[in-house]
């Protein structure tokens, strides 16, 4: 098994861990592979042992009972857990059937649209259950967010981001949604006017161009898009670009348009979102090598992003990123956060001394000192422009 296949397998098995614990563990094993040398990947994987067993030990160490995650496994697998002497190939439930090793989902060399579907079906029962729990949580979070939004709209002032929304859409809100604060997302944000599965070529760029409205990204096995609002489906178009990429456009002028895009990890090489008049962008926990997000008026926020190049820009709004960290196959190299009229808050997994910084804020221009004698010391660049406070944290694990 090669390095990335091993790491992808490990990542899959370590799903019960928190994002932070998962990243730490993956960092350790990736570093281990790197230290052992690129030419020894197979041998190193053998030395480390079956990723399923390694994952089990890690889960035990973190106080998670691995057996509770594996209720659906066969008796043979449980036996293998108890007796360490059993050779690793006797693990039918965890290891796919004999024959050539299936290409892991995250392996770019084997990644293609058709194989994605096949790989998805290979998920273990407990993984499915975890996804179910995950989606329930996501749905819950959405309901909470929408009710907060509604309360904001119902109140007098409203937040500047949503003032336009209030003036143009409040009549709909009063009729339909205000009465039931915790009603389902679809009812609150109008109706679903468009929904479709997305291709996941594993390369190319997904362009998402909105004239007006909010965009939210979710991570999930099935790539899909859902547009809700009060406008007509004809405002939405989806098509292929020349180089494996896709373009999704929404010309609706309705500020309540809400585009939700679900993507598996590395579904594309790049995701480029642009909102040309007004709307917020929620990047979620995207795992995409290159991410570019622009909105003319609205905030940009994210959960834990795993990326190499990130550019977030808002002409009128704030940027708030929970965490920017390395992916399995790439490390964060370049981050640009531009909020010339707002604030920027972000945390980074990498330690501060790995960043070459250029920060333009009211307090003045802060630049990394020129004592960059060790050329390897800085291998990530960070550029920030903000009008209000800039809050940056480093080495957040």
């Amino acid at each position, binding site marked *: 098994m090669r390095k990335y296949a091993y790491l992808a397998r490990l990542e899959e098995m370590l799903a019960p861990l928190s994002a932070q614990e998962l990243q*730490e*563990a993956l*960092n*350790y*094993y990736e*570093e*281990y592979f*790197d*230290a*052992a040398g690129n030419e020894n990947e197979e041998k190193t994987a053998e030395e*480390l*042992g*079956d990723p399923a*067993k*390694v994952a089990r*030990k*890690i889960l*035990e*160490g*973190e106080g998670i009972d691995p057996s509770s995650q594996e209720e659906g496994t066969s008796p043979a697998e449980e036996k293998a857990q108890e007796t*360490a002497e059993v050779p690793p190939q006797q693990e039918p439930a965890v290891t796919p059937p004999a024959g050539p090793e299936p290409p892991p989902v995250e392996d770019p060399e084997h990644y293609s649209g058709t194989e994605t579907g096949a790989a998805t079906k290979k998920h273990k029962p407990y993984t499915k259950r975890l996804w179910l729990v995950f989606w329930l949580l996501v749905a819950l979070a959405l309901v909470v967010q929408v009710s907060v939004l509604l309360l904001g709209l119902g109140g007098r002032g409203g937040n500047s981001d949503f003032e336009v929304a209030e003036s143009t859409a409040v009549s709909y809100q009063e009729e339909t949604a205000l009465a039931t604060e915790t009603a389902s997302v679809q009812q609150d944000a109008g109706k679903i006017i468009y929904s479709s599965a997305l291709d996941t070529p594993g390369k190319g760029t997904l362009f998402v161009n909105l004239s007006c409205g909010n965009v939210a990204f979710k991570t999930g096995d099935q790539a899909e898009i859902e547009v809700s609002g009060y406008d007509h489906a004809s405002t939405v178009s989806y098509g292929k670009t020349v180089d494996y990429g896709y373009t999704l456009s929404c010309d609706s002028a309705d500020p309540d348009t809400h585009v939700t895009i679900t993507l598996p990890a590395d579904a594309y090489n790049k995701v480029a979102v642009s909102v040309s008049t007004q709307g917020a962008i929620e990047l979620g926990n995207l795992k995409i090598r290159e991410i570019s997000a622009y909105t003319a008026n609205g905030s940009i926020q994210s959960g834990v992003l795993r990326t190499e190049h990130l550019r977030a820009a808002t002409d009128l709004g704030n940027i708030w990123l929970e965490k920017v960290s*390395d992916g399995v196959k790439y*490390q964060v190299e370049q981050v640009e956060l531009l909020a010339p009229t707002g604030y920027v808050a972000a945390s980074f997994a*990498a*330690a501060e*001394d*790995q960043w070459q910084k250029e920060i333009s804020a009211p307090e003045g221009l802060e630049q990394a000192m020129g004592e960059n004698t*060790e050329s*390897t*010391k*800085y*291998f990530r660049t960070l550029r920030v422009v903000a009008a209000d406070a800039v809050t940056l944290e480093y*080495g957040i694990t």
Partner: protein
Amino acid sequence: MAFNTGAALLDAIVLAVVAREEHGTYGYKITQEVRQVLDLSESTLYPVLRRLQKDGCLTVRDEAYNGRNRRYYEVTAAGRTRLAEFRAEWDAYTSQINKLFKGELS
């Protein structure tokens, strides 16, 4: 080997290996050095390092190495105290067992 290496002994061994390096050492190197004295087949030290870190026996720092991150582990004062305790216990334990094996125990 007929004898198992339990969690406590593994902790002690890893602490001893890390303690040899004044400025800390990293995962791969620790593993290789432990392998010199112990058969570590099908075993990984990551959970051990995590445990010692959580117990405050080790601290970590990340350093760039060849454009990549490398995590260095260093023994804390608490870790050194723990290691000294382990050594004392080990001495007492082995001397008793040795006496028994050599027929010195009556």
